[in-house]
């Protein structure tokens, strides 16, 4: 659209600004709340301008945490979340790229069936199969462990499917040329396919890291030991307190801190992420 009509420009900008405002306003409120004094919220009115307790609130969150809420210090929860998100990301990519490789490049019995079985699990997210999955994890004695936190989330039909689609676009001649050049299957995978998938892996890492980071229900179920609490479920614990008003200024500081790692990942990986999504030239 290269039309040049002033009122259209105004309209499009209005729509964009409105969209940004809708997305950004809650985040702004969270930030404002995290800078207020403890008694501000008792008045029942939400201020729209920053208060003067920002340094105090963040320092308190980062050092002592909210010990009264039964949650561990923030640092530990952030570390748990990071570890969980990274294990899920790496695990998902390793599993899905190798299974996609097997499905696309090897002729084995029931190959199509294997692919469709993987594909069907797309219809069964964790929430649907949560009780049987919990039973399995519990019977394996994996409650309150990083393995229990991550393993059930690692199998990924989406990533397998994406890598499969990408591998299908790689010309067969490339594999044949590699065979003539004396590269076996695994060598072809390592020398040709992996470098070609670099941008796809980058884009997927961002998505999967965030997927791992925002997990709420599963960590809530499998962890009872506060050493394994993740930040997203920890925040919820901070907000619900018996016998007293929640300390919103501290909760919101935790929220802002919890948002930083995924934001950082997106910003750092942005170039690769966009390239992975739009690049067509192989």
């Amino acid at each position: 659209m290269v039309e040049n009509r002033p009122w259209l420009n105004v309209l499009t900008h209005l729509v964009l600004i409105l969209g940004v405002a809708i997305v950004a306003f809650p985040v702004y409120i969270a930030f404002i709340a995290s800078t207020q004094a403890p008694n501000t919220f008792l008045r029942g009115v939400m201020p729209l301008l920053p208060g003067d307790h920002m340094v105090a609130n963040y320092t308190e969150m980062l050092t002592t945490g909210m010990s009264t809420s039964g949650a561990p210090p923030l640092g530990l929860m952030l570390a748990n979340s990071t570890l969980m998100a990274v294990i899920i990301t790496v695990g998902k990519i390793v599993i899905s790229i190798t299974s996609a490789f097997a499905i696309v490049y090897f002729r084995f019995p029931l190959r199509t069936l294997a692919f469709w079985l993987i594909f069907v699990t797309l219809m069964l997210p964790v929430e649907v199969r949560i009780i049987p999955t919990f039973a399995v994890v519990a019977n394996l004695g994996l409650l309150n462990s990083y393995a229990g936190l991550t393993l059930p989330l690692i199998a990924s039909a989406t990533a397998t499917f994406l890598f499969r689609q990408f591998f299908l676009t790689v010309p067969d001649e490339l594999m044949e040329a590699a065979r003539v050049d004396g590269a076996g299957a695994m060598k072809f995978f390592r020398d040709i396919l992996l470098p070609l998938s670099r941008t796809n892996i980058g884009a997927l890492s961002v998505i999967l890291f965030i997927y791992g980071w925002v997990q709420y229900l599963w960590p809530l179920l499998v962890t009872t030991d506060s050493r394994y609490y993740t930040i997203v479920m920890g925040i919820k614990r901070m907000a619900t307190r018996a016998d007293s008003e929640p300390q919103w200024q501290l909760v919101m500081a935790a929220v802002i801190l919890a948002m930083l790692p995924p934001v950082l990942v997106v910003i750092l990986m942005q170039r690769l992420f966009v390239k992975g999504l739009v690049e067509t030239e192989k």
Partner: protein
Amino acid sequence: MATIQLSSVKKVYAGNVTAIHNLDLDIKDGELVVLVGPSGCGKSTLLRMIAGLETITDGTVSIDGKVVNQKEPAERDIAMVFQNYALYPHMTVRGNLEYGLKNRGTPRDEIDSRVAEAARILEIDALLERKPRQLSGGQRQRVAMGRAIVRKPKAFLFDEPLSNLDAKLRGQMRIEIKRLQRNLGTTSVYVTHDQLEAMTLADRLVVMNAGRIEQVGEAMALYDRPETLFVAGFIGSPPMNLVDIAYLREKGRVPELPAATDLVGFRPDTIRLTPLAEPHLTLAATVELYEPVGGETHLHLRLEGSGQLIVAAVPARTAAPEGSMVPLYVASADLHPFNSQTGKRTD
């Protein structure tokens, strides 16, 4: 350097589709053999079977006297040039050239000297540090050839390597391939569907149709004496004219031809518009289209009576206005007798 023997080679795909029927072919050391035929005739399948990229259903493929049916492509010591070049997109030109040598565990200094030599021969020295996507079609083609020659393989296999290039570049690269193959003296098998490319390149030409060999021989031998109707129609451009013998008999005296003959072929360039001294055939036709192509002119003619369309290639600027009736003379020696039932030559 090697010989390649195919004996009763057969390829049957899943679903009982036979792509190659009991085919025999001997390729001599240092020879450039071109497999030519229409799409789907099995020429690429045959090449891929030699390369080891397709399994062999029956029969044997031997390279240098050793049966290689069960060997991986890399163990056959052949190099292949693909139609879309199949360069590794994430490697530099140097990386592409080196990859096969590295996999073989060739020592570093030997790799360097071979890459340098190949780059010099193909004049791609300046491109060694570039990625394939920064190269033009012709340059990619050279790199693909380079990847084949650095290996110093027993044989080169070319799978329609020029079909992605524009016409002018194709002509240039054709000459270069021919020169390169002559200088290196490496046994080569070249697949193409372009009969001009096939004729100009081949030491020997193998015309294939529907999974069978129609005829094998030097290009001019096939042109001068096609053994089957298929070869007659496939080799030569414009293709040979084929006229029913009954029509010729009706129109005049026909020279003595074998009894089984029912179709008579003659090349467009053997048709004359002026009477001949030697024994000949005389026909008449209407000029339907006058097509100057430069050095000669193609006349699209409609035969008097039957209305069949034939083509004559006559010298440029021949006076034959569209719509006029012209007499045609073809020397008896230039006639090719065929039988349409067997599809074979009758003399």
